[in-house]
């Protein structure tokens, strides 16, 4: 077994510097790498490009990095929950590239899987396709999209082991598995680091080969963005 375990978030983020490109898992605040984000704030690295489906809210998730103006560019599909984000974007402080969610997902997966480019129908005929190659297949138009390139991928998983194997829970899975191995270094934080051999080999969502560093995360807040409930009658 190749051991990927590191002691803590400090060790896990070694090598992180200014002006890097990061991938961050999560959808909304669900399944975000809370420990890695907190450490990025502490490190104070600036000029960052962040590939993440959303940009957090004002005081949580990537919003924490936006507050400190550490992010130079966001590559996302939806950013509608963050006033500071909107302010920085409209004032021109923040560069924003909005791309369709499925394209965002597949550009991660292409990086993970060694595909340089693929054709997708999403965005054809819209400003998303401007300047991009388009092409017809079987009577339908498609846009050529390219694999992302990133320095670090920050992943949040439910369970993991020292071999780097990961299991996700519910919709906290989202972009996390497809960002694993899509950057030069993949750092996974887990709610529960379990002993080797505990995870069923048949039920591992991401094999450890895609993960370079794994650590036991701490103090998860797991904030709920839209608490919707029924009352028992």
């Amino acid at each position, binding site marked *: 077994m190749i051991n990927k375990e590191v002691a803590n978030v400090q060790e896990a983020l070694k090598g992180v510097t200014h002006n890097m490109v990061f991938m961050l898992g999560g959808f909304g605040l669900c399944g975000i790498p809370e420990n890695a984000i907190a450490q990025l704030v502490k490190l104070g690295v600036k000029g960052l490009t962040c590939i993440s489906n959303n940009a957090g809210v004002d005081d949580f998730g990537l919003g924490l990095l936006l507050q400190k103006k550490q992010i130079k560019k966001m590559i996302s599909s939806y950013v509608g929950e963050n006033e500071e984000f909107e302010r920085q974007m409209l004032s021109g402080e923040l560069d924003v590239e909005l791309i369709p969610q499925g394209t965002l997902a597949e550009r991660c997966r292409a990086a993970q899987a060694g595909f340089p480019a693929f054709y997708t129908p999403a965005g054809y005929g*819209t400003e998303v396709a401007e300047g991009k190659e388009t092409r017809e297949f079987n009577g339908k138009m498609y846009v050529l999209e390219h694999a992302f390139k990133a320095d670090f991928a920050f992943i949040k998983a439910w369970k993991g082991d020292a071999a780097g194997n990961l299991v996700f829970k519910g919709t906290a*899975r989202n972009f996390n598995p497809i960002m694993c191995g899509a950057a030069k270094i993949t750092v996974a934080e887990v709610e529960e680091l379990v002993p080797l051999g505990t995870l069923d080999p048949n039920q591992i969502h991401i094999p450890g080969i895609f993960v370079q560093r794994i650590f036991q995360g701490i103090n998860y807040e797991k904030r709920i*963005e839209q608490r919707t409930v029924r009352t028992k009658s």
Partner: protein
Amino acid sequence: MLDKIGIAKRLAKELKDGYYVNLGIGIPTLVANYVPEGIAVEFQSENGVLGMGPFPFEGEEDADIINAGKQTITTLPGASFFDSALSFSMIRGKHVDLTILGAMEVAENGDIANWKIPGKMVKGMGGAMDLVASAENIIVAMMHTNKEGESKLLKRCSLPLTGVGCIKKIVTNLAVLEVTEKGFKLLERAPGVSIDDIKNATEGKLIIEDDIPEIIV
């Protein structure tokens, strides 16, 4: 005229037995509450869940189980969770049978705009561009006019597009319309709404053939 609940109820009649359905944020989400008796449908949410159930009981909400609107949800027996790539495989691969989503503008050629108002509002397209570029069966749910009373059914969209020539049907507070090669074909009108009301609220070409029945919800 229909209210949001009325629009949702009329949309629910578009559900067919065996349909996998993706519901957008807003009015479309309400459709799940009015599934006709005797048919089986499953709701997919593009953040990675199939087989969504109702909201959880108070105290039972789970931060790890949400829909694409970031709302806490439950799942039904037979549900599954998956990653974002597989989720869009379902959408792009035409495995989702029906998509219902909101819009800011729809054009008579089937173009839709619902993600950006230049200089004013830029929330992003989320999964909408994948949905409209992929699905065969897309219905727009929206108010017939905007807050300024201007028509949202246009000759050409003025806002940045989400997709081209992709909308097949529209359900508004005033009417049900089909997008045809000739323009918006009026299918049904809301209770208490006249043909003239609909004509006045529709900028794009409106096609009226035969009698137009009233929407039954």
